[in-house]
């Protein structure tokens, strides 16, 4: 299922999403730069995994990509048609907003609040069908839902269909949510940490299920995770791509082989160090390869390369200008770090020295960051 390099389903150009954080009645308002100047394309039948710590803007980027979050700058296009122009109807709209809306769906992290607690599984699932398939009568709708429930392994489906949300286990709820997204026959599903709330033993089952159904209804997945192992599993199994995000910017994107196991960007290396392996090899140092543990506040992000305040290899030039996401010579990977450009003036500017390696909130004050 190689990625067809045809016209992308979703193309994002120079995207900016800023939030207004108002402190109290008279307090001055601060702007949080959740996503800042980002380009991304998602193709047909593609699997793209976004990884990053909380507050890096991966969820905001995800929701913007499926038209749930309005960008403050740049554009989000669905097969060439700007989603928000279609919604407001300005300019000649060749793909109607309804069609766009229908083809971009979402699966949430917490199965607990993903289904309406007051209605049965059947009622939850028949609502979207009533809207999009008006010609179906009650029984057709029931039949289609029951066959899909069976398809995701919930047998006997009639029994599950008549249950309330709190009578299902976490794994079962997540499968009902998957069915709800599939009912729309979407082109792109945003799986926002869809497996991290499940039992360890169910995670692989859920990811396999999603990939298996991908062939059936040819949808792409935009998978969001804070856990590198989940990202590795689904991106390698689906031959997809992995993107590492830091403070609203994409710092490295490419095939899992390159990005996870032959990392170039210092921040990806830190994430790789932080992911525990089953058997720790003794030579990996227990001191974190980063100058400051806590993430800076997204309200006034550092200048130039945003990672320079924590990067062990940061140099003066890193604080002045932000690096661009550039192709590297070894295969399909783009990285935003001067170290990847052999003849950049980075190599002869002197390293940034600051006080001893202090881990934790000693230096900068890191308020709880905005939603990631």
């Amino acid at each position: 299922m190689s990625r067809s390099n045809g016209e992308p389903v979703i193309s994002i150009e120079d995207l900016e999403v800023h939030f207004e954080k108002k402190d109290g009645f008279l307090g001055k308002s601060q702007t949080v730069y959740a996503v800042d100047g980002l380009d991304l394309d998602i193709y047909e039948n593609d699997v793209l995994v976004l990884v990053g710590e909380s507050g890096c803007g991966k969820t905001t980027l995800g929701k913007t990509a499926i038209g749930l979050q309005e960008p403050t700058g740049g554009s989000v296009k669905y097969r060439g048609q700007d989603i928000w122009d279609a919604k407001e109807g300005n300019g000649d709209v060749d793909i109607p907003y309804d069609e766009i809306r229908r083809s971009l769906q979402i699966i949430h992290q917490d199965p607990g609040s993903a289904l309406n607690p007051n209605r049965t599984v059947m009622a939850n699932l028949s609502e979207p069908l009533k809207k999009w398939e008006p010609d179906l009568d009650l029984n057709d709708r029931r039949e289609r839902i029951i066959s899909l429930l069976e398809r995701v392994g919930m047998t006997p489906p009639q029994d599950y269909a008549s249950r309330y949300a709190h009578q299902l286990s976490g794994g079962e709820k997540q499968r009902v949510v998957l069915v709800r997204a599939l009912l729309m026959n979407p082109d792109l599903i945003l799986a926002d940490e869809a497996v991290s709330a499940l039992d360890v033993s169910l995670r692989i089952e859920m990811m396999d299920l999603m990939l298996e159904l991908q062939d059936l209804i040819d949808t792409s997945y935009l998978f969001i995770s804070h856990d590198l192992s989940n990202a590795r599993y689904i991106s390698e199994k689906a031959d997809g791509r992995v993107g590492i995000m830091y403070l609203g910017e994409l710092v490295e994107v490419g095939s899992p082989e390159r990005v996870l196991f032959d990392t170039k960007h210092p921040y990806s290396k830190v994430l790789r160090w932080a992911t525990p392996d089953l058997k720790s090899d003794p030579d990996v140092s227990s001191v974190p390869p980063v100058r400051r543990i806590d993430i800076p506040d997204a309200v006034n992000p550092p200048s130039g390369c945003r990672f320079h305040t924590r990067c062990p290899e940061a140099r003066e030039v890193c604080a002045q200008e932000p690096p661009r996401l550039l192709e590297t010579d070894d295969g399909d990977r783009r990285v935003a770090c001067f170290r990847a450009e052999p003849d950049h003036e980075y190599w002869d500017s002197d390293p940034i020295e600051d006080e001893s390696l202090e881990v934790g909130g000693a230096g900068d004050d890191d308020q709880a960051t905005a939603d990631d």
Partner: protein
Amino acid sequence: MSHDSGGTTAETTEVAQDESLFETRSVEKMTRGEYYRELFDTWIAAPLRILRSDYRGIFGFALIGIFILMGTIGVWIVPSPEATGPILQPAFKSMEHPLGTDSVGKDMVSLIVHSTPAMLKMVSAGAIFATSLATIIGVSAGYLGGTVDRAMMTIVDVAMTIPGLPLIIVLAAVIDPTSPYLIGILVTINAWAGSSRTIRSQVLTLRNQSYVEASRAMGLSTFTIMSKDVLPNMMPYIMMGFVGTARRVIFASAGLYFIGVLPFSTLNWGVMMNLARSNGALYSPIAAHWLWAPMMAIVLMSLGLILLAQSFDRVFNPRLRAKHQKSSDADDSEVLS
């Protein structure tokens, strides 16, 4: 509750392979009868079963039931009060005047019964007006957010701080209302403010639930989301607001009639108390029953409403509902691990 999942491999029924998943049509039809029976069971049978199981529900339902019956059928059975009986006969003295008579010989029971219809009209008008206003403002402010929310909330805060009774008195003194519906609405003129704020905070928590965002993602109209996702989960708060306002209508209207601010146009428990007081019932024990009868009516009706409010919370809570439906086996293992 382990289920033997048939695994997701291909050997599930062949339906998926030959015709795509998106064209399946139903085979057997569900009869209309089955459909309605299912509806009846979820919305009527289960709540009644819960009410039955909780003593508060039973008492509340009984008390309110009695007053409703009094206000509807009672009015036909009990003759309307005429000044024919003995003067100021104390309570429990004779059978035809079990609660005694007033200073002009009118029977106390018929006075109480014939004031109930007006009181029921006032209570329902006031409660419906206040609750619907509170729900509309609370849900729209909570759901739409932004400037709409801020503007509405300033109005609500102002309305909440204006003291209810003096405002009503001032309005009543000028408008001089007579119809019970108008009085009911007048008395709840700012009662809706408090519950609109509770409803708004509930809607805010609901709005951020993922299933509401998922409905938005599926392109469902705001109206469907409001009516199908948000409102049903609001029912406990709306019902409690309804019953709370109803109680406030009884208190305020009877009080205003009692001190004579509202005109004596209709028969009312407050009017009875006023007449009793002006005829010296306060300091002469022999007329005490004249005061006690209407007071007891007010207290009992309010008690019924409070008990109903407390039991409504149990009716609308899905977890409680499941516990009472024998069929489902709620899965509590996570809780205890």
